């Protein structure tokens, strides 16, 4: 169990690591170029791993609806946004605000799709996140 906990933590660390490295690349190139390299290098890595491991096309890969293929282009904007933000507002602010956006949009999506869940917990969770964003929000500069 302790190993799985360590692996799950490591997965989060790697998300931050990847954003930090992509942000550094964007500082020398551009956010969009950084996103391009992130995708093509990741594609090469996954292709090699999947070929060694096997099972890339297992199951019924073509059974997915067409819109499921939109994750790639959306990811390009997502990675470019992270690479653009991280040198400007820092790694922690970038991570926290992305998490806030992910959590609140996740609740909205759950409500739209009629996913079961406690309305009270949702309201409290969203309220705490909004309060956290309020605390972090831009302040009027004192001169």
């Amino acid at each position: 169990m302790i190993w799985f906990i360590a692996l799950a933590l490591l997965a989060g660390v790697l998300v931050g690591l990847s954003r930090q490295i992509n942000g550094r690349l964007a500082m020398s190139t551009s956010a969009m170029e950084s996103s391009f390299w992130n995708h093509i290098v990741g594609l090469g890595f996954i292709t090699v791993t999947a070929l060694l491991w096997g099972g890339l096309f297992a199951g019924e890969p073509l059974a997915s609806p067409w819109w499921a293929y939109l994750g790639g282009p959306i990811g390009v904007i997502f990675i470019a946004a992270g690479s653009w933000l991280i040198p400007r507002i820092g790694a922690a602010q970038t991570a926290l605000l992305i998490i806030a956006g992910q959590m609140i949009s996740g609740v909205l999506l759950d409500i739209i799709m009629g996913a079961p869940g406690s309305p009270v917990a949702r309201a409290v969770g969203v309220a705490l996140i909004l309060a956290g964003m309020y605390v972090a929000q831009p302040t009027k500069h004192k001169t």
Partner: protein
Amino acid sequence: MHAGMSDTAHVPRLFHFAAAFGAGGLLTLMILFNGTLAVHGSLFFASWVPHLTGTIAALILLMLLRPKRASTTRPPVWTYLGGVSGGVTVMLTSATVNTALALSGTIALGLAGQILFSLFADIRGLFGLPKRMPEGRDYLSLTLIISGSLILIFFGSTA
């Protein structure tokens, strides 16, 4: 740049704020779309497809927008390897999601790892990014956003 730069460098401006929050919304859509691919195909396929279509989309956007390079000198080779880290992440999460940790534990621990790393990265200015010392308000905002997220992850849905 204005005089208050050193005071405000770590405080996101409204546009940065909106961009990061919007990016979080995009992440929710990505998880929905890529997760749908994983329902029918393998976990490799669900990561391979978005990387392939993303590479093509990024190439088209680069050709259309032709963004200016910030520097004429080439950055070090390791700066191109961010995508490897992303690829490993997919494999780790798929390894832990089916254990006793389940999806909620995997997400919660992932958030913890991400936040701890990003605080450390800011304090040390890791990989040549600007150094930033988090202040009291940063920790308050962090505590509120993470507690809200944990409530949503563990109690907001019955998944």
